[in-house]
């Protein structure tokens, strides 16, 4: 027996207090690091474009960076740049960016798909919108825009007035050669979507079936790519950007999205938000989470056994209730536009007591109602048979695909930014992160149901705090200049826990009142990538169940 104190299990480059020692990390990479940059959220290592895979593999294997949160691509006057935003699932505050510059005339960079599966779609998007090419990428084609598009719209020399031609084709079977035994054609190609009730919007699944089993599924997205990043790059920080986040995840999750932008921009401009406003934000954001999860549960039941009458209607009825509360608070049912940089648009509606009473009633109502949902849904044998042990997403795969939110938590990954990277008023309140080890469609539904209970708890505690708040200290807005012009070349990546998972935003400023690059890391985009793992080898109806359990929203997938 030794008297030595047990050394905590630290990754290389990790200090005992949970911060990162960037010098040690740089030492780990040796001369691969050719330069260092300082971003607001983390230090960035600059590496050569032909060493990307080595560097990322080392960081993942030896330093524990198992979460490739986002890949940002952008064009400067003299170069292109890809940024890999790395984090750890065990502690998302330990961040590191890897910057890969490539020359303007030959933007060719090594792909990171060999290390992180999630890089696949991110790099396709970078190729599509900015025009960087990735060497060794397994499938480098356009992802959001039609395959015949000319030019890269977020590049600097793009001409938006040029005409474009978009084809409407019957799709050929992409795996015909791989799966066909000569003389015995058994596979069938099926287009599901983009107009289909089970795809939750305009998603197109190119599916190859063998009998009723899915051999290959290739989600074809971009049917709702409405240039959100361009819109934000054209708008001013102070007021014009805020309405757009409402329209990314539009399932009433608006305030959660607004918070992502508010958090990023506030940290960039050093704005201190009054505590009272943070409580208001926390309360309204959790109301949004309940509304979003209700719709997820309702449409999931609709997908599983076509239940358009009971659960779907129950869910919509309850959504009406929470939307009424949000409408009282913000004046809007769906697109709230309630947060402002440095605070919120206005205080609680008068008379306050009446509003508190309504909110309290709702918080008491939710747990009762959840019993009902459990009776109707999770204890329904039919439902159980359809969703238990289908759509399995093992935790390792989930991490590699960058899954977050309820999808990751249902695969046993204990990851929630509200607790792990605290913001707002969450760390003052008493609530739990819900996880489940089931990894299947059933667990994902359960996690969402139980998260509603926790959200109701959070709202209730917020009401307690708000009720006792002294009247003359109800400060809802910090002092923010009329025009925000952050220092040129400030770069920041910040994320919040939205309804679907980690919603991150990268902003680079150029000294004007508009961002030079605005990149959205959408949780649904990353989660959707894992559909392949969940669906291949399963039956078609199980694929539909898996898709429903991912709870994607196309506005956020396509942006």
């Amino acid at each position, binding site marked *: 027996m030794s008297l030595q104190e047990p050394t905590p299990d630290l990754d290389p480059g990790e200090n005992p207090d949970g911060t990162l020692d960037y010098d040690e990390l740089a030492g780990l990479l040796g001369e691969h690091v050719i330069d260092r940059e300082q971003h607001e959220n983390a230090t960035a290592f600059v590496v050569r474009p032909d060493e990307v895979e080595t560097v990322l593999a080392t960081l993942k294997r030896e330093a524990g960076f198992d979460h490739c949160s986002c890949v940002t691509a952008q064009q400067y006057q003299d170069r292109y740049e890809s940024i890999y935003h790395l984090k750890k699932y065990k502690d998302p505050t330990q961040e590191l960016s890897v910057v890969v510059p490539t020359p303007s005339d030959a933007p060719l960079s090594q792909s990171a798909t060999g290390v992180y599966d999630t890089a696949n779609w991110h790099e396709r998007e970078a190729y599509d919108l900015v025009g960087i090419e990735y060497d060794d990428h397994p499938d480098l084609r356009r992802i959001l825009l039609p395959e015949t598009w000319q030019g890269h719209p977020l590049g600097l020399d793009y001409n938006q007035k040029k005409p474009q031609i978009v084809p409407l084709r019957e799709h050929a079977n992409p795996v015909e050669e791989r799966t066909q035994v000569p003389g015995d054609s058994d596979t069938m190609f099926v287009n599901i979507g983009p107009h289909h009730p089970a795809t939750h919007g305009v998603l197109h699944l190119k599916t190859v079936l063998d009998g009723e089993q899915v051999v290959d599924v290739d989600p074809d997205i971009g049917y709702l790519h409405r240039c959100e990043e*361009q819109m934000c790059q054209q708008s001013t920080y102070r007021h014009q950007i805020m309405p757009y986040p409402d329209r990314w995840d539009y399932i009433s999750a608006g305030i959660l999205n607004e918070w992502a932008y508010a958090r990023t921009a506030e940290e960039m401009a050093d704005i201190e938000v009054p505590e009272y406003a943070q409580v208001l934000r926390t309360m309204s954001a959790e109301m949004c989470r309940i509304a979003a999860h209700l719709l997820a549960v309702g449409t999931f039941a609709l997908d599983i056994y076509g239940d358009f009458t009971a659960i779907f209607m129950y869910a919509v009825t309850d959504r009406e209730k929470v939307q009424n509360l949000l409408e009282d608070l913000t004046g809007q049912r769906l697109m709230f536009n309630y947060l402002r940089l440095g605070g919120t648009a206005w205080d609680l509606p008068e008379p306050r007591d009446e509003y508190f009473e309504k909110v309290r009633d709702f918080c008491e109502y939710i747990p009762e109602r959840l019993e009902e949902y459990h009776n109707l849904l999770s204890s329904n044998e039919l439902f159980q048979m359809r969703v238990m042990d289908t759509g399995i997403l093992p935790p390792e795969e989930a991490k590699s695909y960058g899954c977050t939110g309820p999808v990751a938590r249902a695969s046993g990954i204990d990851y929630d930014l509200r607790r792990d990277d605290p913001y707002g008023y969450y760390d003052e309140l008493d609530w739990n992160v819900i996880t489940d080890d089931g990894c299947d469609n059933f667990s994902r539904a359960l996690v969402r149901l139980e998260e509603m209970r926790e959200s109701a708890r959070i709202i209730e505690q917020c009401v307690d705090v708000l009720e006792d708040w002294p009247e003359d200290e109800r400060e809802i807005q910090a002092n923010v200049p009329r025009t925000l012009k952050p220092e040129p070349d400030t770069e920041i990546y910040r994320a919040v826990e939205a309804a679907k998972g980690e919603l991150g935003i990268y902003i680079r400023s150029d000294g004007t009142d508009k961002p030079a690059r605005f990149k959205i890391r959408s949780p649904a985009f990353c989660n959707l990538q894992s559909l392949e793992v969940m669906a291949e080898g399963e039956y078609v109806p199980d694929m539909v169940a898996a898709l429903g359990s991912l709870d994607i929203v196309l506005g956020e997938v396509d942006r």
Partner: protein
Amino acid sequence: MSKEQQLHDTLEQAQSNGQSTQADRMGSGADERFNSKLRQAFGSTPFILTKFDQFMNWVRGNSMFMLLFGIACCSIEMMHTYATKHDLDRFGAGVPRASPRQADVIIVPGTIVSKFGPRMKRVYDQMPEPKFVVSMGSCTISGGPFQEGYNVIKGVEEIIPVDIHVPGCPPRPEALVYGVLKLQEQIRHGESAPVTVKPYELEQFGDLDRDELVDELASEIDEEDLVMRYNWAESP
């Protein structure tokens, strides 16, 4: 007297009066349930005299099958319009159909982007005549908040003809209900909305006028492939 006895006596009494139990329960006039207010207004004649077209329009306006067609944010409000509380069904217009072949009305609830344009045109073409279009939300009117986007069609009218525009971002369910009611009114009166924009067509690639762009894509697209050509510079 026990309750059962009471009930028994009442029943016996009713039967001896020559009345059915149902009539007894419902009171007089139960058999006249087909004799509606409308029927009474007609008086004794079982015939009405009207123009066939007018009659058809009236019928059409009162029985509309909507296409289950979700695109973006507005579709959430559209779902709320169909569901409890707002219940579009009350107005004879709430049967969502998943197949365009069974639908009369298409509500377009969201931003149309270049990739979706040809698909929406295809869905619209599959609907049987007569068909009607409600454009829901600002995006379907002009592109809305995304009007300046490189990928956004500046209004659904650039692709299919529209009968009713419902403005808002998104319109409230009440607004959509009002829009649908206005459409019903229009149909009943046999009115139609004028088309003011020359829409983009789905045509074969081989039929396009040859220019630089067409030459460039000639190796990628077959002559017979259907394509939609967007002339962004001429968009409103």
